[in-house]
């Protein structure tokens, strides 16, 4: 029983959607040896997804209409309370603060991180000696557990830490904010860490995509007299379009799931003054710390629909531009 959606479902659906569509196959009868083998092979995955994603979601949906609690005194019965949990969530100003923070974070992080990822991917796609070293360096943050790097960043972002020492040098001492203690800078600090920590993942996906663009296209473009920018605009971008869209979507979903950093890094989870409180923090705080499983479940359901809506809208908008293939 988990009031917290892992978000695995959305990501899995996205991965499936982003893989190239296969040519339609002939209709076959349902129970050939092949289909049975197919089902057998997918059974472990199906069972795991059913147990850990579908079932918890159905339970969360059910709990969201009850006053279920994590622990109850003996004799207390769980009651059906209709939409009370939802009403309570929507009437809670902290929910709207959390949602606003999520949106702010996504609006800044998604374009910025995708841009950096593409920039780094192009940098490390050069045919230079030792470029593997740089690929490894940019990818290393991904291999560190977020919680661990968050703890280290707390030290780096200390008002007298390394980051401020750097800013003080380049601004002649005019800029040294209390990154995690000042509500005005807390989200900026979190954004900085988040991009550092996960840009390598997007970079690797885009790097693979870049290497898939045939060299012959660049040769043809150069023969036509295209300069570097024109090659990038008319050969590279169309060539990596699908992976780029995948990166955009997955970054959006991951941005909405912002949790580890804002739980660990500020003075208190989501602090200071709720400046970094996100929906995930709200869900964990409500469902686990406050033990209000019913209200936490309502939050999870709302969260899922928000992420789903954002993803659908994003895909619709992008698809209208037409497929280039």
């Amino acid at each position: 029983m988990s009031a917290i959606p892992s978000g695995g479902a959305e990501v899995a659906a996205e991965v499936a959607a982003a893989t190239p569509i296969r040519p339609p196959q002939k209709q076959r009868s349902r129970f050939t040896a092949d289909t049975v083998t197919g089902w057998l092979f997918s059974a472990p995955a199906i069972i795991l997804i059913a147990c850990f994603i579908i079932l918890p979601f159905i339970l969360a949906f059910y709990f969201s209409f009850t006053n279920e609690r994590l622990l109850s005194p003996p004799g207390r019965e769980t009651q059906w309370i209709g939409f009370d949990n939802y009403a309570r969530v929507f009437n809670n100003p902290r929910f709207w603060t959390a949602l606003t923070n999520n949106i702010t974070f996504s609006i800044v992080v998604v374009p910025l991180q995708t841009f950096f990822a593409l920039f780094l991917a192009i940098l490390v796609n050069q045919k230079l000696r030792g470029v593997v070293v740089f690929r490894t360096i940019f990818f290393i943050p991904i291999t560190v557990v977020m919680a661990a790097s968050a703890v280290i960043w707390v030290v780096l972002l200390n008002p007298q830490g390394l980051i401020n020492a750097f800013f003080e040098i380049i601004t002649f001492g005019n800029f040294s904010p209390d990154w995690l203690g000042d509500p005005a800078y807390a989200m900026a600090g979190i954004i900085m860490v988040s991009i550092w920590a996960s840009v390598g993942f997007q970079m690797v996906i885009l790097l693979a995509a870049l290497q898939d663009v045939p060299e012959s296209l660049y040769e043809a473009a150069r023969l036509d007299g295209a300069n570097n920018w024109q090659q990038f605009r008319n050969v590279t971008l169309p060539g990596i379009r699908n992976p780029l869209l995948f990166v955009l979507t997955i970054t959006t979903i991951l941005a909405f799931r912002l949790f580890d950093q804002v739980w660990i890094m500020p003075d208190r989870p989501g602090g200071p003054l709720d400046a970094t409180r996100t929906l995930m923090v709200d869900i964990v705080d409500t469902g686990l710390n406050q033990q209000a499983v019913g209200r936490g479940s309502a939050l999870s359901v709302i969260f899922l629909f928000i992420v789903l809506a954002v993803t659908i809208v994003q895909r619709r908008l992008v698809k209208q531009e037409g497929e280039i293939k």
Partner: protein
Amino acid sequence: MTHSRTSRQVALMATVALAGTAFAAAPAAAQDDANVCDGVIDGPVTLEMTMHTGSNPGAEMETVDAFNAGPGAELGVTIDVIPIGEQAYETAITSAAAAGEMPDLVDMDGPSLYPFAFNGLLSPITSCVDQEKLDYFLGSIIEQGTYNDELYSLGSFESGMGIWAHKSMLEDIGARIPTSIDDAWTGDEFEQVMRDLQAAGYGANGPLDIKWHYGAGEWRAYGFAPIIQSAGGDLIDRSTMKGSDGVLNGPEAVGALNQFQTWVDDGLIDLIAEDDNNFTVGPDGEANTGDETPLSWVGHWMHSLYSENLGDDLVLIPLPDFGNGSKGAMGSWNWAVSSGPDGVPNSGDEADLDAAWAFIDYATSPESVLRFVNGYGAVPPTADLADFPGFQEGGDRELYIDYLSNAHSDPNLEQNGSMARPATAAYLFIRDRFSEAFADIVAGADVQSTLDNIVMQIDQEIEDVGY
């Protein structure tokens, strides 16, 4: 200063003792009942116990090992420890309870006990303890372990709060140095001392260390609720235990926290320190060079580090009096017995209470208490202080005993002494809200509206859950 118990504590202990004899007087029901101490351990048994691992878990582990090797081996009782980190301790136990995996024994931080008792996850030990054992403890330990007139836990040590100071620095600025809880600085006097220290150049990041790096959770409620209590406010309305309106957001609490907020704004509070070293060694990494933070607002657990580094220059000062007396804090980790893995009382899966009690009895024996007092600098939980010179009259930590022996739970009472954390199942909720609000106030939030907001949440929660 007398070290006798207050009448309230005596009355409380008498209640517990009476309840104990009532249980003992029902012999028929006591036979073969795992939930009642019948004085017979039913057979060789291994009990699982969750235990917090703090920065120095030595004394707890030594106690368990000594029990397993000594009295435990004789009685056929073995304790199997499940260590859990201090930061998420309550969450871990809550999850275990929700999953039907409660251990047999639990180690609880002060009032965390009450929500677990409320939810039926603990078995009372009222039937195990006799009058002699009750008399052996300070009243505060019995008070901490009592919920709904049943005794649920006993602790191996008490705690104490105060301000550690560099005596030489205070003398340098000509400050009056209070020596007992009855001549504590007033809030304004304390502010002046800090301003003078700041003006004299002591403490690069502010003259007062408040262990901000401990983070959210128990410390901020334990350490800073005394501020509002000293002003006449409280965490909950103790006359009803049903809400906090008017006490947590009343003019007294708001006034004291407003004053505290100005100290933060004026740079009197060190919020930057990342460890405990700012008080002892300062930025140059050397002790006794005058660049250390002059004051440290913290509990007894810093005594050994501080006294090793400062020696005779270390002095313990009572917390300031914001108008209604100097209030300390009290209570600490305590041992309780679970109502079995499923967390349902009387369901038949409980461990033999006599076996569990054998451990608690040993863990609170003079032999064990010595480990905690010597190992952690903890405050002895016992009424008799003969073995503990530091806590006797004239000792360097006599102050802690003064706070505890004048303990009370009436915020309107103008009396110097510790106030117990409220014995309500809503404690963890209140603690988390207060800790959050305190952090927000330090970050510059409006005090009145921040407190109004958490009071609304607390009152709503108490109504929802029916605490």
